[in-house]
């Protein structure tokens, strides 16, 4: 029996660059096949060929043994290929139900949208995907992880036979990952083939059968995951023996930098889906990396945003001190002036001006350092930019290219470079390695450990538990905006953190 999908010698060039040079890939019915590789290895290009996004490519594609050609997205969709892209394709101003049936709304006899059936079908669809969500909610009000679940439900509804998932779990907390895997396993029983792209190698063994590794646009090999260790996979991806992913820094925590004492934010206008900080007591010392664990919606992001003066406006209770002085920034500008830096969760939306150059982005937060009387000294700015590019190992043709053209890892380094130019003493990080390949991840970890050695205090929120355990000195677990546990990295395990994050014990209400 021919495989469900067979791609032979797929090649694609952009100008003079070989993005893909003759890659073979096959997918069986009912199989989950992982596609691995660092950013820029050619995964996205291969997927885009399969999705019909390029009018021309070299090589042959066959589905069920029958040759097909995909030159337009519609051809791929008609053949049963559905893709969930990293960039979510949802209309923020419309409801979940409307998005699920966008372009194929159920009609009534007058050819108008049958709203009742729309809602009913949407609810059924979400239920099949195992997603608990009100279909009448607006996409705008959903968090990244929730939007992803909607995307998955949408792909399911299109009767896909080949489902491409581009980093579906990057934005999901562990509980949601479980939910997603359940759905994927169900799909396999229905004979769907899944192409699964992920940077989280730990989870592959749970879900995927085979893995194909790409590097620099070429095929490295296809392996059975059951017989391959994580170390071997990383070795294939990186093309060299794995350096220790988590460097052991010898930073000795110094004096107290940030001190939160029963810290609470009472928002002027509470927004649904946000867990504002409640009664948080937390300390970050100089040279210390403190982790924030917790599920999606546990209030990690809200705490960091509040500490950066970028959260909900409202009244602060309890005490927050930075270097012993009261600290209550009402804008990011004030926070930066006080010596605090922030790497936000969503670098495309919050971290970067994508259309503008590397140099403009890197200097944006620290412009006054290069300015005299409002005039920017281009020479000094460029010198600083070049230094940052070299220090962080940012790969770019020159400092004038738009950051849009860089890979995810390099974009993230640009966000770091921008914040570091402001010379912060406290660095707030929200998912700093999301969507970043293994090599760049290791570099970011090394950077964090170096910064800590230099005496910077770091507060790191992450949904990747191995990352927290590997990088942090202490880890605080949040739930509903409250710190429910605090463990040293030595005593904490993935299980103990998860336990604290998911336990259903009621959070005791303080005098709120």
């Amino acid at each position: 029996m021919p495989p469900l999908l067979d791609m032979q010698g797929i090649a694609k060039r952009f100008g003079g660059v070989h993005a893909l040079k003759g890659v073979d890939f096959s997918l069986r019915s009912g199989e989950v096949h992982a596609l691995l590789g660092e950013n820029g290895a050619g995964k996205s290009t291969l997927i885009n060929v399969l999705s019909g996004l390029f009018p021309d490519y070299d090589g042959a594609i066959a589905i069920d043994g029958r040759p097909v050609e995909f030159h337009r997205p519609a051809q791929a969709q008609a053949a049963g290929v559905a893709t969930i892209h990293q960039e979510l394709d949802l209309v923020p101003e419309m409801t979940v139900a409307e998005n699920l049936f966008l372009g194929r709304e159920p009609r009534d006899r007058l050819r108008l949208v049958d709203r009742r059936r729309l809602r009913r079908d949407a609810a059924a669809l979400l239920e099949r995907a195992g997603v608990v969500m009100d279909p009448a909610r607006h996409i705008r009000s959903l968090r990244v992880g929730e939007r992803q679940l909607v995307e998955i439900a949408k792909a399911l509804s299109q009767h896909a036979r080949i489902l491409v998932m581009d980093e579906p779990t990057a934005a999901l907390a562990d509980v949601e990952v479980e939910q997603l895997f359940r759905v994927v396993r169900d799909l396999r029983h229905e004979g769907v083939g899944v192409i699964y792209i992920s940077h989280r190698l730990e989870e592959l063994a749970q879900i995927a059968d085979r893995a194909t590794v790409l590097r620099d646009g070429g095929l490295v090999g296809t392996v059975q995951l059951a017989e391959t260790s994580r170390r071997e996979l990383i070795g294939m991806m990186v093309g060299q023996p794995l350096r220790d992913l988590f460097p052991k820094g010898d930073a000795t925590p110094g004096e107290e930098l940030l001190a939160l004492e029963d810290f609470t934010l009472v928002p002027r206008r509470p927004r649904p889906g946000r867990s504002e900080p409640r009664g948080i007591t937390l300390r970050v010392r100089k040279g210390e990396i403190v982790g924030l664990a917790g599920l999606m919606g546990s209030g990690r992001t809200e705490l960091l945003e509040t500490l950066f003066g970028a959260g909900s406006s409202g009244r602060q209770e309890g005490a927050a001190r930075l270097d012993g002085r009261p600290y209550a920034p009402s804008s990011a500008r004030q926070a930066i002036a006080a010596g605090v830096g922030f790497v936000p969760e969503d670098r495309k939306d919050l971290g970067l001006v994508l259309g503008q150059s590397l140099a403009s982005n890197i200097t944006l937060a620290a412009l006054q350092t290069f300015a005299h009387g409002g005039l920017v000294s281009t020479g000094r700015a460029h010198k600083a930019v070049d230094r940052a590019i070299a220090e962080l190992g940012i790969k770019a043709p020159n400092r004038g290219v738009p950051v849009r053209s860089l890979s995810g890892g390099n974009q993230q380094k640009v966000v770091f470079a921008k914040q570091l130019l402001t010379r912060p003493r406290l660095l707030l990080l929200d998912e700093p390695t999301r969507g970043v390949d293994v090599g760049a991840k290791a570099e970011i970890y090394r950077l964090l450990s170096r910064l800590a050695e230099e005496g910077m205090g770091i507060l790191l929120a992450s949904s990747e538990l191995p990352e927290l355990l590997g990088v942090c000195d202490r880890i605080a677990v949040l739930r509903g905006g409250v710190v429910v546990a605090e463990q040293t990295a030595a005593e904490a395990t993935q299980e103990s953190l998860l336990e604290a994050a998911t336990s259903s014990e009621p959070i005791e209400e303080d005098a709120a």
Partner: protein
Amino acid sequence: MIPQTEGADPPTAPTPPARRLPQGRREWLEFVFRFQSLFGLLAVFIAAIVFSPARNGELLFLTTENLANIVRSVSEIGIIAVGMTFVILIGGIDLSVGALVGLAASGVAVLLMERDYGVVPAVALVLLIGTAFGAVQGLISTRLAIQSFIVTLAGLQFARGLARIWSDGEGVPLAYGDGPGRAPDSFSVLNERLLGGLLPVPALIFVCVGAVAIFVLRRTTFSRHIYAIGGNERAARLSGVPVGRVKVAVFAISGFLAALAGIIHAGQLNQGSPNDGAGYELDAIAAVVIGGTSLMGGRGSVAGTLAGALLLGILNNILALNNVDANVQLLIKALVIVAAAALLTLRSTDE
């Protein structure tokens, strides 16, 4: 520099951006796209020479007097368009500028003729009113989180109403001379030409405004803030950019320049009417768009806008020299706007 997977090799210094002439067809195409408004200006200029009527063997279009006249004729729209460029770069729009021209033109005429103001206090007061008007629009837009389109749409009505109340709804002719009920002679400088009749004063003001704006948008932290806000306002705010202050300043600049254009208008016509400047906001937007500035914000330049304004001026001039009907001129202007916008789209999808 060995191409390797990320993080493998030691960091290499980036090569500085090369400043050289483009090579190959593709690079030339990109080069032309990047300076589309300048190339457009050049093309229209050459076309104007080709189609110029001649008298006594001299091309009418190329006479220094005609060229100076073109710059003078676009100076008002050009000055407004420079302010509009700032607003559009932050992703906003300013519809109030045409009405502000009317307010400033009638205002300065009333102050000079009926209130016995000197030229300097009258001009200063009117410029201040324009600046404040813009700043208030910016404040309303940022504080109440209302789109600038709507705020300045209201501002347009407000300014027009204010102008009519101030001037009793009638045009105020300027009569020069000494004594009450007459405007000081020095105000008529706006009708004069310097350098032996070569350089009309409004054209000089226009060129100066353009030069200052180009400098500001190239060199200042303010300009970096403007481009960042237009490119991604949320990221700009998180980078410590004082978003509210910059926006208010941008609308204040637009109001200031609209008032300046209104004063020039009154000076050139020797009268100020509250109905002056109707539709100028749209001509200014046209100049900005032809100049290659994106209405989405974050991309564009004053140099492009100047080229766009001059392009429209040359177009009007050559059509008039050939006695083409004014209504046909409108049709051609429409085609130019669409062509410029199409080029811009082509360029952004190319990237």
